[in-house]
């Protein structure tokens, strides 16, 4: 009897530890914003020659990815090719430039390419606070109604793109 109980306990622990899909990773915080309308923000463009400045209203009408990034953020650079790929595949990608200097952001975009349909310049991170952003990069999927369908914290890797982002995009677009 005690052995059976112990085995059952071990089983439960093993499942909880290994089943990463159930969001049991304590460092992954569920965002309370998922399922809610995207918080109202209104951001200026970084510079005149960079498409940008947008409000929450602009996000409606089509499935959109909102990617929070900064020029000083190395993981953002790591995920940049994947963001670029998504945009090239026809997904609408908006950017929030988080806690950045305009000149740095301009240089960064010139050097690494600008896949964003529009970029909002959020130098003081006030808009990021509205979106519950804790750091960069973070990526939101917004459905056509302007509701946040998914949030990913941290850089997008090819694995996460395959397993999380693309399925969610299909689900939201189909629904």
């Amino acid at each position: 009897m005690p052995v059976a109980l112990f085995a059952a306990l071990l089983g439960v622990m093993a499942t909880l530890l290994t089943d990463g899909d159930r969001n049991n990773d304590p460092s992954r915080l569920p965002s309370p914003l998922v399922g809610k309308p995207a918080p109202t923000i209104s951001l200026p463009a970084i510079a005149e020659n960079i498409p940008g400045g947008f409000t929450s209203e602009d996000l409606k009408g089509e499935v959109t990815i909102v990617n929070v990034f900064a020029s000083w953020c190395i993981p953002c650079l790591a995920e940049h090719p994947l963001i670029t790929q998504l945009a090239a595949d026809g997904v609408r990608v908006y950017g929030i430039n988080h806690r950045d200097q305009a000149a740095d952001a301009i240089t960064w975009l010139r050097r690494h390419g600008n896949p964003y349909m529009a970029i909002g310049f959020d130098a003081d991170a006030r808009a990021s606070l509205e979106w519950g952003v804790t750091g960069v990069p973070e990526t939101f999927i917004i459905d056509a109604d302007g509701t946040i369908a998914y949030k990913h914290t941290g850089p997008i890797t090819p694995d996460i793109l395959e397993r999380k982002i693309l399925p969610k995009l299909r689900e939201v677009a189909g629904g």
Partner: protein
Amino acid sequence: MKQVSACLALMILVLLAGGAPALAVQPDEVLDDPILEARAREISTELRCVVCQNQSIDDSDAEIARDLRLLVRERLVAGDDDEQVVQYIVARYGDFVLLRPPFQPNTLALWLAPPLMAVIIATLAVLFYQTYQRRRLAGGGPEPLSPTDRAELDALVERIASTSPPNPSGARRSQFRAEIEDGLKSSADLDDAEARGDTDGSDGQQRT
């Protein structure tokens, strides 16, 4: 001289009072209204700096902690009450920002597990103690000898006594007997020191 000692006294007083604590809150963040500022400080100590795990935004130097402190003050100035300010931030960052977890369905296990454990352990302790007491009171030692055993013991005592060189008197026999019975008893109940105490004087070899 008087001035010097006054100076010293003042310095000691400041040291004793702890001086000004090292603050994460920067002077430019502080609100003009001291009452609002006090409320902001109080709210801030209850909110977690989300990137630094177990520090409140009031303690943390992280940028996001500063931003959240400013947000708390912004909401207070806008006229929110304390509860509304906290809800505003919880709506964006989730329950995780609350350093004191709320009592709600998904935190039931968190809140109830410790008292439940205490109850379980207390119950076990009582049961264990009762069993122990019952066993102690039930006999405090081995069952009395059966008639067969007693006859066997008598025969044994008789034999030992008759083979022992110094003339075994009646008194000596009964002493033997007592010792053997005691020995049986104490080997079964080591805790019972009193029973052994009776014979310790007569035999230095008795176990203690």
